[in-house]
């Protein structure tokens, strides 16, 4: 009897714990969705359900509405109401400043910029890494062990540690002076950022393929190259897909290098820096920032959901990087 009661309490406690964990994880996303659909007068409302649905932020960001009317922030309206000694010209300037539509957020432009950088960089990195990882994992030559250790080492070097020298090198080479040069520099930098993790993860996965399969292929008369293309790649499809999503995500989410290299090229902004620029551009933009945030997250979340079955369960593909 006591045991049964204990068990019920335990179960309730456990369920509460699960609910708590889930809430902690998804609350920011729910809040994002909620804020993106609220009118500005509703932001202070602690309820997550908007009093009235406002799809203005989405239609503005996605360019659905032709003429965009930016709502005057409540704080500014209040200021105007409470200071009657402003001239009408001053009033007009203030209203104009806060309802300016010149810096609306062209989501699709930034989306395609991000897509361009992330796709090119992740695919290049993947192709280079497949052959490199195979060589490191399966072939014997002088320096192979050194390269293997080196990869593990550079796997942990990144971001701010490389920013200054790479920036100095590219400016010295004159690459940052033109749009083409900047694109090239950034693509190469993203390849470098993702290559070590690709090499590492793919190497681990290739090592798990029984060598006897390859041996059989050699006996059949396959060359090394044929073996890679016809045996190794199809067999490690799940690992390759996972690695590709990882490197795509690293490039898609990258802020640091983009912020420095694309600083003066507003047209080439990727989503992360555009979002940051949107946030600092004007007061009272929570709905648009939330909508843009949500839309930025959607592609990588979808990609992850697609490869999730490779991640879960017992089969972990050896370490992954964030």
């Amino acid at each position: 009897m006591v045991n049964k009661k204990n068990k019920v309490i335990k179960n309730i406690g456990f369920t509460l714990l699960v609910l708590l964990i889930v809430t902690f994880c998804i609350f920011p996303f729910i809040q994002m969705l909620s804020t993106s659909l609220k009118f500005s007068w509703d932001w202070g409302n602690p309820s997550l359900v908007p009093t009235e649905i406002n799809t203005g932020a989405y239609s503005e960001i996605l360019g659905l509405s032709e003429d965009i009317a930016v709502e005057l922030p409540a704080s500014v309206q209040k200021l105007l109401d409470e200071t009657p000694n402003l001239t009408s010209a001053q009033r007009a300037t203030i209203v104009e400043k806060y309802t300016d539509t010149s810096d609306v957020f062209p989501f699709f432009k930034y989306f395609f910029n991000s897509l361009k950088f992330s796709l090119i960089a992740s695919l290049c990195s993947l192709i280079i890494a497949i052959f490199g990882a195979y060589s490191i994992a399966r072939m014997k030559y002088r320096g192979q062990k050194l390269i293997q250790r080196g990869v593990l080492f550079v796997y942990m070097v990144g971001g701010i540690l490389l920013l200054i020298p790479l920036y100095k090198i590219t400016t010295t080479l004159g690459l940052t002076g033109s749009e083409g040069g900047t694109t090239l520099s950034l693509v190469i930098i993203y390849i470098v950022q993702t290559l070590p993790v690709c090499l590492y993860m793919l190497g681990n996965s290739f090592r798990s393929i029984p060598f006897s399969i390859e041996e059989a292929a050699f006996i059949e008369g396959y060359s090394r190259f044929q073996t890679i293309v016809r045996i190794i790649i199809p067999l490690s499809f799940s690992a390759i897909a996972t690695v590709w999503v990882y490197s795509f995500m690293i490039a898609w989410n990258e802020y640091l290098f983009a912020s420095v290299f694309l600083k003066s090229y507003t047209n080439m902004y990727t989503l992360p820096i555009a979002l940051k620029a949107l946030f600092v551009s004007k007061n009272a933009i929570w709905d648009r920032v939330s909508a843009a945030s949500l839309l930025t997250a959607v592609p990588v979340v979808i990609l992850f959901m697609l490869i999730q079955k490779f991640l879960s369960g017992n089969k972990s593909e050896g370490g992954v990087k964030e």
Partner: protein
Amino acid sequence: MSTTKLTLGQKDARLGFKLVLPSVIIIGLLIVYPIFYNIYLSFFNVKMNGDAFYIGFENYNNVLSDPTFWASVGTTFFFVIASTILTTLMGLMVALVMNKKFPLRGLVRSLVLLPYVAPVISTVYSWQFFFDPVNGIFMHLLVDVFHLSASRFNLIGDPQYAIWVAIIFSVWKAFPFTYLMILSRLQTIDNTLYQAAEIDGAGDIRKFWSITLPELYFVMGSIVLLRFIWNFNKFEEVYLLTDNVKVLSVYTYFKAFTGSMDLGQGSALVVIQFSLLVGLILIYVKKVLKW
């Protein structure tokens, strides 16, 4: 056999080298070379127009005699240690929960991965909104619901509190990775160990301390070290959430890319940060990879 003909092994070695060559070139040119170039640069006064003058150790002197640098070292270690500990504990707890069977577990697993998967930039603003002094729910709870504070204040704007927000955000972002790693190890623990313990009359807590934890020891050790190294270099998660928390990466970014853009001093800072990192990596290689 003519000497010019390569043996099969040699041929294979050549091919192997050719296959890895593109990776080696890219890593060499864009990671290894910049590391050394950075050390070289740290001995120069780099002007904004690109000119550089050799100044010996002056950059280092300037950095090391600057109290804000030491404050930033302190902030970094506080941030890294606190976030690593909390991330690991949270990851362990969630892994233990997920190792049990319960309804909708598949869905819960997907949801728990969301913080880890979503871009940093798209999650920081929601967190800022949560702590926003005017509209945020946190202040609503603190002031209006629980009356713990007399008035609303800007939590993220105050460095003293902002670092805790940064730590919580970092835990939120990173614990799914820790949890996945721990869970995959948990699932390999031999069930007969638990059965044997049960026969000996061990309760759940006893089983956790005597079986689960020792089995997880190695994987947790490596996760802690990796998390330490990664968080040590963290830039975006901290900078985008709040520029009030000056960890070393953020400090360097401000020195090198804002205001007078002092690339020389920035390089010196990077060399210092890098040396600390190499120390950590060596510990990692020695301790973890030997396991």
